[in-house]
């Protein structure tokens, strides 16, 4: 029986879709059979982030309405063995799907896949309720900003009210230089406030923009620091014990030289 993991955040723009794409691809690279579901009906984006936008025929609404079979709507990612995408509808709205339909869909997909990763829309309304309905695990994505952390706290409360206990936290877009200056909350600060378990820290990385431009998830880029972070999170999802990446040591040689000559304050 597969696991259904919802990726949520409350606030928009913190990296839910990027996280979904990378973790899903990461799990497929580990040999798992994975389906990604985009539940952001009307504002779908997981398809473009995955680079599969030209292959959509049917979507999530077609499936729940019975206009097609699940198999017909699943887009097989030819680059990664075992990876599939169920795209959201673009010309409908969130009320086109209800939580009961999502539970049924997730239960059917569980039979077939190891992991079902659900990309949740921003907000706490219908779309959120749909996305969490069929899930048995939740990952909350936040960034080290007051607005994102506040919304994450609200989401944690709502997840627990909906019987999704022990959600895990990803702190995304961490900038070590700013943390060192005291201008960005540390991971410990955020955990202290949200009081939930951490599953990963993803550094701010230009390569994410490049990978999104190309529609190729960074998790497959061995040189990307964010990609490495996603690979680690992938393993933690699978139950492996991987220590949290020490971002301090990844300053790079230039940084160390500059620091040596007093050009960089730490």
């Amino acid at each position, binding site marked *: 029986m597969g696991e259904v993991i919802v990726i949520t955040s409350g606030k928009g723009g913190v990296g839910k879709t990027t996280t979904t794409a990378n973790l899903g691809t990461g799990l497929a690279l580990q040999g798992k059979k994975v389906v990604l579901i985009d539940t952001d009906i009307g504002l779908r984006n997981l398809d473009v982030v995955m680079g599969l936008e030209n292959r959509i025929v049917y979507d999530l609404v077609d499936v729940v309405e019975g206009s097609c079979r699940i198999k017909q709507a699943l887009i097989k990612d030819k680059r990664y063995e075992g990876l599939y995408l169920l795209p959201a509808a673009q010309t409908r709205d969130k009320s086109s799907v209800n939580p009961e339909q999502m539970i049924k869909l997730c239960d059917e997909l569980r039979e077939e896949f190891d992991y079902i990763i659900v990309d949740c829309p921003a907000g706490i309304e219908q779309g959120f309720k749909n996305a969490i309905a069929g899930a048995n695990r939740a990952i909350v994505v936040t960034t*080290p*900003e*007051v607005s994102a*952390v*506040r919304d994450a*706290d*609200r989401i944690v*409360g709502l997840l627990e009210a909906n019987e999704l206990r022990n959600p895990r936290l990803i702190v995304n877009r961490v900038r070590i230089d700013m*943390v060192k*200056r*005291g*201008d*960005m*909350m*540390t991971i410990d*600060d955020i955990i*202290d*406030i949200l009081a939930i378990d951490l599953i990963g820290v993803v550094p701010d990385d230009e390569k994410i923009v490049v990978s999104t431009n190309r529609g190729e998830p960074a998790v497959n880029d061995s040189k990307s620091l964010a990609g490495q972070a996603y690979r680690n999170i992938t393993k933690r999802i699978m139950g492996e014990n991987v220590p949290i990446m020490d971002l301090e040591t990844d300053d790079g040689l230039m940084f160390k030289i500059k620091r040596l000559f007093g050009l960089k*304050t730490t």
Partner: protein
Amino acid sequence: MLLDLSKLFGKSKASKDVAKERLKLVLIHDRANVSPQFLEMVKGEIIKVITNYMDIDESALDIQLTKTKCDDEERVVPALVANIPIKNVKNSGK
């Protein structure tokens, strides 16, 4: 070094500490999730009890949920603050 010096002279706080403090305060309110109706109920009960002992100015009565610092440490806890102007203390209450 710049950062350390400004700290030494007690100047501006690191902005991340400001962020953390502000977040903690706002979350107390968010988490309490106290509805206006709930506060009205509490207000009604408080008035009922107090009017047994004193005449109060009900129109100027103000009850709200805020936060306060604990005496022992830096910890911030939610607090129910009531401002109740007294017109006259009844004899029976003395």
